[in-house]
C-alpha cells in the first residue's frame, strides 16, 4: 500500500501530502506519524496540505486526531498551507479543529514549532477565516 513519506528534520517531522488522500492512506499516516514521533523523539510535526484541493470531514477528523495524538506524545502539530477555498468549505461543512494549530506556510509553521511564533497564534500566523 502507498504511504505518505515522513521526513525527519532535527527535532521535527515534516509531512508534505502530495497525493489525493483516500481514507486508508490518511489512517496509515496517522499511525506512521505516531510511531515516528516516538522513534525520533520528535517535538514537532509539520503537515503541509497545500497540495490538497479538498479536505472532507473524514480527512479533517484524521488531521485533528493526528494533532491530538501527537500532543499526547509530547509533540506539537502545525498544519500549514491550507488553500482558502478549502478553509471556507471546511468551516461551512462544520468541522471544528479545536486545538489544531495552523499556519500559512511551512516557514511560518516551522517558526511556530521553534517557539518564534506566539503560542496560540496571532491573527497573522493562523489561517484566517475571512471570506
Amino acid at each position, binding site marked *: 500500500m502507498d504511504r505518505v513519506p515522513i521526513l525527519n528534520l532535527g527535532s521535527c517531522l515534516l509531512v508534505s501530502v502530495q497525493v*489525493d488522500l*483516500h*481514507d*486508508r492512506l490518511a489512517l496509515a499516516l496517522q499511525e506512521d506519524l505516531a510511531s515516528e514521533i516516538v522513534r525520533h523523539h520528535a517535538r514537532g510535526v509539520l503537515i503541509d496540505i497545500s497540495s490538497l*484541493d*479538498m*479536505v*472532507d*470531514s*473524514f480527512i*479533517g*477528523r484524521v488531521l485533528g486526531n493526528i494533532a491530538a495524538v501527537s500532543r499526547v506524545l509530547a509533540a506539537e502539530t502545525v498544519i500549514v498551507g491550507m*488553500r*482558502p*477555498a*478549502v478553509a*471556507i*468549505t471546511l468551516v*461551512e*461543512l*462544520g*468541522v471544528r479543529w479545536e486545538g489544531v494549530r495552523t499556519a500559512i506556510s511551512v516557514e511560518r509553521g516551522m517558526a511556530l514549532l521553534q517557539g518564534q511564533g506566539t503560542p496560540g497564534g496571532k491573527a497573522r500566523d493562523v489561517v484566517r477565516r475571512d471570506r
Partner: protein
Amino acid sequence: MTSSVVTGETLAVRMEDDVVRVRQVTRRRAEELGFRLVDQTKIVTAASELARNTLVHGGGGHVHLSVVQAARPGLKLVFEDHGPGIPDVPRALQDGFTTGNGLGLGLSGSRRLMDEFSIDTQPGAYTRITVVKWL
C-alpha cells in the same frame, strides 16, 4: 424545478479508490461548467462525503453526474445504493449524528455545501440522495 439533462455519466462506488475517482471526475465537470474555485471545492467535498456514505453505509452503489439546465445550468449528482436505507431521515440530517465512526457531518454538511438536497430512502431497500449546485 423543471430542468433538462444535457449530459450524464455514471460512476461505480465500490471501493475507497472509487471515492477518490468520484472527487476527481466531479472536480473536472464543475470546472468545465465554469464554477468558481470555492464552489468547485464545495461540490467536490459534498461528493466525497456522499460517495463515502454510499460505500460505508450503503455497502456500495453508484453516482450519476449530470449537467442540468433550468434558469441556470447546474451540476446534479445522484448517489444511489441498495443498502439498509435511512430509518429516520430528520435525525440523520442532524449535525453530529452518526452510525459510523465519522463526525456525523456527511449529510448535514453536504446539504449546507449544495443548493439543493433531497433524500429518497426505503428502509431495507435503498437510498437515493440527489444534490444540485447551480452556476
